[in-house]
């Protein structure tokens, strides 16, 4: 997996020594249960970083690598969460099927919605995505009988993994569940890396860089933005499904535009031109949220202040800045 990532980052953004970043990140992720408790953290916090990091990285396929700004990605995150939750509650006690259902629900919603917006650009694109997100929010909010409305969807829990020869209990053991999340995260980001290193991935960067040139090289812009949007939504929905499994809960706030905004903040703070940037941003965001919210309910003001400082002083984001600083 690390080798594919290396090719992506060199090909797509010409960053110095991206393999080093990949190696460090994987070393840290794999050893979380060893060092996190020593710093006063708990494993579920790392799970949140993985899940929100995956959401931000999926969103970044669109923002950082296609150059298109969606402000409604929480919709697909939330649909993924509800898809997984409803499957576990009403259909079957299977964790893999719940994940598949979440991905399908969010991915299909994005795929069907995409053609309506691919001709819009910039602020218009962003506004229509917000509007769709709010529609999804109000549906979940109002459809009490199915979704539990404002209180959220409860009464489901992740089921043990039956691998045929062995059953893995991911229901109680936090560390086992963390590694389960990490495996899914690894597969998803590996696929994203392969995607970005492919000819299709390069057409997305081409669209980001110069739409007119891309069109005059024969690339059908609208179709490719649509494909990128659909893929991005499906991966975001995967993150949402994992989120429902993490909390054994799904609620309308998972669809709300404030979460869309947080996904944007994580991505920009970490660095939208760096493959792992959004993960770094998500880690910072989740840790700040956890730490500051234990002291004040106004934690968001502090996160906002830090966001402003990062954007002012490190416009390439934290990881973008670190890679630039150490690479050459």
């Amino acid at each position, binding site marked *: 997996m690390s080798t594919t990532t290396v090719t992506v980052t060199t090909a797509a953004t010409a960053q110095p020594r991206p393999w080093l970043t990949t190696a460090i990140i994987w070393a840290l992720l794999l050893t979380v249960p060893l060092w996190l408790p020593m710093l006063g953290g708990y494993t579920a916090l790392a799970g949140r970083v993985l899940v929100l990091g995956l959401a931000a990285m999926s969103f970044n396929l669109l923002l950082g690598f296609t150059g298109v700004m969606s402000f409604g990605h929480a919709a697909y995150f939330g649909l993924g969460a509800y898809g997984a939750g409803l499957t576990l509650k009403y259909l079957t006690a299977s964790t893999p099927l719940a994940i598949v259902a979440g991905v399908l629900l969010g991915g299909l919603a994005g795929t069907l919605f995409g053609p309506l917006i691919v001709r819009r650009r910039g602020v218009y694109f962003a506004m229509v995505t917000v509007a769709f997100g709010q529609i999804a929010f109000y549906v979940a909010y109002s459809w009490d009988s199915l979704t539990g409305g404002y209180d959220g969807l409860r009464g489901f829990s992740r089921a043990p993994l039956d691998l045929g020869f062995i059953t893995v209990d991911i229901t109680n053991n936090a560390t086992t569940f963390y590694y389960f999340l990490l495996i899914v995260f690894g597969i998803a980001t590996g696929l994203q890396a392969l995607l970005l290193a*492919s*000819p*299709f991935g390069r*057409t997305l960067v081409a669209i980001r*860089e110069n739409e007119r040139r*891309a069109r005059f090289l*024969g690339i059908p812009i609208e179709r490719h933005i649509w494909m990128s949007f659909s893929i991005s939504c499906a991966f975001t929905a995967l993150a949402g499904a994992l989120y429902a499994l993490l909390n054994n809960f799904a609620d309308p706030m998972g669809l709300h535009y404030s979460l869309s905004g947080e996904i944007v903040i994580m991505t920009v703070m970490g660095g939208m031109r760096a493959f792992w940037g959004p993960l770094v941003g998500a880690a910072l965001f989740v840790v700040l949220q956890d730490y500051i919210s234990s002291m004040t309910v106004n934690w968001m003001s502090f996160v906002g202040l830090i966001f402003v400082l990062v954007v002012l002083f490190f416009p390439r984001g934290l990881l973008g800045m670190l890679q630039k600083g150490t690479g050459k």
Partner: protein
Amino acid sequence: MTMLDVRNVTKQFGSLVAVSNVSMQVATGELRAIIGPNGAGKTTFFNMISGFFAPTKGDIVFDGAVVTKMAVTERVAMGMARTFQITEIFPELTVRENIRIGVESSQGLRQRFWVGSEKRATVNRGIEEALTLSGLTSQADRLVGELSHGDQRAAEIATALTLKPRLLLLDEPTAGMGEHETYAVANLIRRLHKQSAYTIVLIEHDMRVVFNLADKITVLGEGKMLAEGTPAEIADNPIVQEAYLGKAE
């Protein structure tokens, strides 16, 4: 054989007639220059040929097919490529990556999520060819945005060439360039025309470039066709001298 046949095209923007009833036939292998004072409608004319917008009236026939209302990407697939007055490239990518995107698109790989090693080798050969042809091999791994104006233009032309176009449209390829850069780009165009037998239509302000390179010249003025002929004929044409060249003296 005729590669491009423009038949009585007119383009109106509201009440403004930018191009009025202009026709032009370009033979295969020909290098045609379009000249005319500012506001003559040259770029509008170009935009209709390349598919930026459709003419109000008239038809455009490319390689035997009517393409008047065809989308840009369809024309590209038929073998039309163009460059722009203000260079259009992928500035934050290297020269090689710019060219790679063109090569992969022209080889029909643009929707592929995976390519085998054989195909990858073909792509790399295409990249090297385009680099050699444009003389950019030594700059291949620099970001295009960091190159000189002239080299950026060469990179844009090289990227357009990856499409192996049957018709290459160049909108003011030497615009804003100094003596030395103009000479280098003019030489590149000459090589493409003489050695590689490309059919080229270009808009150009630099008269030395035009009269040195072109097989035939089309002169536009105020949206109308003023004259058409070989460089010698155009130089001697009294209407052209009065309307265009005469002003300079």
